[in-house]
């Protein structure tokens, strides 16, 4: 509602109503006088005025003085009203202009004719006194609060704002960010299971927000499945879907080893295709911060970051920490350890001793899932490190990829790729900054889920589960309902007793 012209309009209304009142009275008197004067000259005119006078008297009789005054206001103050309406329409027409371009609105803003009560005189006097004293166009005193008719965001404008923000951030990256960013190659081992959609969607959204070109190598255990393929197709990330011949085992220990083999397969793909960039291992259930992707641009050959370990502690029967654990809590970070001058001296690993008895052995067991000694996701390296031809001077402390896993030995950690681990660069302020978190949350291996998470055809029969959570509190709910009914709906109180033991939703 535009209140800005309230002052002018209120004055107009005040003046016009006053004049209307006078007019109302005035109509009576000329009618009477003309009736007496003009009867000799023009009988038609006098009867006309007499009739009009009579009509007005009747209206006043039936509607009362105030309403008749309103009618006179409407009849006799047309000129003033058109002035105010034209000013509002100029403003509203510009509003509708922008609206039709962007987004069709169903209603045009109403031309408000309401008047701000009580304060018109005060505002008028304020305005007059101050306009006299200063030559300023800015007026001191009370002003209306301008509110447009539809004070909600316009979607086109929101998109424009986002594009502006994107451009600003691009410029910020240009001046203050990484100077010549290298593309990223992300290797993710995955397999089709209940929680795959949950984990992969999170990872997809993260990769889409990365401001550098990303090539995503997805290695799937058990071959290529439609589940994974459909998720990847919708992802809008450039990906390579590589099948892995084995199925994912159910035991955690076996699973870690299989995942390692899958990652090595990914590395071999990079080697075959001579892909350039920075290699990063992103497990699908891990959580990444966008700072990570800026930080790893600094890597020369091989770097290591700190990984926060979120060891999932199983079901509701979590045991409390022992006294020893409270004094020395297990450090939940795996990563490089540096001395005071910033040189790598060793590694922090996850202290899994407190969990040795109660760790999970197979996927879906409600116990703590432990990470391996050295998680792959905490290591990044230059793709040129694993190329066949050491064209850019691959350092001697790097082993050749073909020689790894040749004899069928298991690769526990990426440190097996290098001869000398002291050349690994600690990133993230020497491991002090944690930018990614390791987490393993999985449903039982035999849990079912609808393929593609689409229920087709729609469910027809609804069978209540055996243990409805509401049955214990049903009595309480029923009595509360009775009380409410008594308070608010007197006639319905008789029927409330019928609904004692069922909730409204379950009536049918």
């Amino acid at each position, binding site marked *: 509602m535009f209140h800005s012209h309230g002052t002018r309009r209120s004055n107009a209304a005040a003046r016009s109503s006053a004049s209307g009142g006078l007019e109302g009275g005035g109509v009576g008197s000329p009618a009477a006088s003309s009736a007496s004067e003009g009867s000799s000259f023009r009988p038609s005119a006098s009867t006309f005025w007499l009739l009009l006078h009579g009509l007005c008297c009747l209206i006043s009789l039936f509607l009362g003085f105030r309403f008749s005054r309103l009618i006179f206001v409407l009849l006799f103050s047309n000129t003033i009203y058109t002035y105010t309406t034209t000013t509002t329409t100029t403003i509203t027409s510009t509003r509708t202009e922008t609206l039709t371009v962007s987004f069709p609105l169903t209603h045009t803003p109403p031309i408000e004719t309401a008047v701000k009560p009580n304060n018109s005189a005060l505002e008028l006097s304020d305005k007059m006194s101050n306009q006299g004293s200063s030559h300023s166009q800015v007026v*001191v005193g009370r002003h209306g609060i*301008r509110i447009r008719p539809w004070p909600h965001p316009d979607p086109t404008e929101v998109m424009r704002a986002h594009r502006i923000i994107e451009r600003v951030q691009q410029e910020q990256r240009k001046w203050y960010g990484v100077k010549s960013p290298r593309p990223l190659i992300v290797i993710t081992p995955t397999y089709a299971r209940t929680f795959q959609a949950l984990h992969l969607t999170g990872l997809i959204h993260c990769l889409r927000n990365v401001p550098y070109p990303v090539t995503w190598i997805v290695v799937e255990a058990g071959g290529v499945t439609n589940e994974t393929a459909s998720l990847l197709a919708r992802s809008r990330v450039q990906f390579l879907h590589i099948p892995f011949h084995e199925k994912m085992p159910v035991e955690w220990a076996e699973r870690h080893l299989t995942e390692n083999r899958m990652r090595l397969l990914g590395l071999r793909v990079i080697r075959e295709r001579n892909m350039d960039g920075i290699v990063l291992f992103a497990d699908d259930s891990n959580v990444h911060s966008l700072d990570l992707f800026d930080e790893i641009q600094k890597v020369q050959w091989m770097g290591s970051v700190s990984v926060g370990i979120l060891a999932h502690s199983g079901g509701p029967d979590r045991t409390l920490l022992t006294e020893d654990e409270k004094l020395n809590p297990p450090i939940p970070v795996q990563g490089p350890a540096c001395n005071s001058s910033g040189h790598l001296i060793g590694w922090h690993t996850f202290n899994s001793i407190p969990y040795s008895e109660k760790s999970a052995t197979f996927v879906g067991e409600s116990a703590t899932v432990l990470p391996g000694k050295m998680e792959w996701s905490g290591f990044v390296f230059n793709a040129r490190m694993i190329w066949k031809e050491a064209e850019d001077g691959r350092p001697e402390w790097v082993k050749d990829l073909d020689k790894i896993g040749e004899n069928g030995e298991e690769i526990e950690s990426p440190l097996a790729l290098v001869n000398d681990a002291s050349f690994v660069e600690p990133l993230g302020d020497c491991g002090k900054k944690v930018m990614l978190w390791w987490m393993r949350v999985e449903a039982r291996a035999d849990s079912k889920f609808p393929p593609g998470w689409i229920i087709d055809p729609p469910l027809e029969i609804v069978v209540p589960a055996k243990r409805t959570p509401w049955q214990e509190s049903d009595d309480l709910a029923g009595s509360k309902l009775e009380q409410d009914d008594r308070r608010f709906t007197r006639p319905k109180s008789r029927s409330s007793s019928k609904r004692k033991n069922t909730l409204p939703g379950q009536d049918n």
Partner: protein
Amino acid sequence: MGKEIWVVAFLLSQALLLPIAQAAELHTERISGSAGDVLEDDPVGRLKVFVYNLPRKYNKKMVDKDSRCLTHMFATEIFMHRFLLSSAVRTLDPEEADWFYTPVYTTCDLTPGGHPLPFKSPRIMRSAIQYVAMNWPYWNRTDGADHFFVTPHDFGACFHYQEETAIQRGILHLLKRATLVQTFGQRNHVCLKEGSITVPPYAPPQKMQAHLVSPSTPRSIFVYFRGLFYDVNNDPEGGYYARGARASVWENFKSNPLFDISTDHPPTYYEDMQRSVFCLCPLGWAPWSPRLVEAVVFGCIPVIIADDIVLPFADAIPWEEIAVFVAEKDVPSLDTILTSIPAEVILRKQRLLANPSMKQAMLFPQPAQAGDAFHQILNGLARKLPHDRSVYLKPGEKVLNWTAGPIGDLKPW
């Protein structure tokens, strides 16, 4: 012969194009206002200022009584005095001085809540001028035309916090010919004298520097504002505070996700400003606010919502190119206005704001540094030199009426 000319022309054009190409590659841009490229001028050698030695009751005693005067937004008067005492432009010989400074702190009488009371300020100022006029001949020589005063209160030398009363009072009559250095600036307003120097309000520089974040932190907030929209204590009816502009901002944009506006006081206020593209600087009871200084220091484009406002150092800083001005009547379409600014214009404004001399010009660091607000004030005074001959009164000529003004002002202090 012809070929050589072409070669020379080609080389010349390359030499000319290079610096232009380089300029676009920088992340800052030089600032030059209507007075030229004057932000980095050095005032030393261009003017001489004589500082009157007033008794303690006019300055030091007030600060000793209440040390909050040193940290509130009106602390400019105190720091200007201290700066001038040790500055190279100061001269101990009044005969060679171009400008005379009277160190009187009129904004240091604070309520228990910390707000300055302006009721005694006219008397304090009058008393100081009388002291100066009686003890030195330089005031009467020009009736104050080559003297300058720092009056940082809400409405400058009108000495009142309420705009209507301030307009009624007008500028103190005795300051009619003097130059005023004040924070208040509004065109065609009684309380802004012709030839005044508008300065930014005092904001503690160390506090702001302590909250700087890395410039690579992406700016993800579109519009940011923290402050009151309604002043229920002083304006219970609504419509008086900020001429209804702040209330209009709230009512129109409270549900707009692009606008991060609220009344609370987060501890990350300064950090949030560095993550925003636009910062609103609407008027309050007076058109100026420390938000402008904060926005400039943190690289957030100020959106000025105050009709006819005169911004600090308006002749040295081209505010039209740096800030976005929105008329109070256009506040309901603020989102349309801000989203339709082309991205190149926004980037250019950010480049101008990133210029360190711009940020420096808004601050009052202790000790003073080159290019800071103290130096900009001196530059402004230097630009007014040499004094016009009308400044010097003929012998026996008197312009000021020492009994003008409300009766209450004439009481001695």
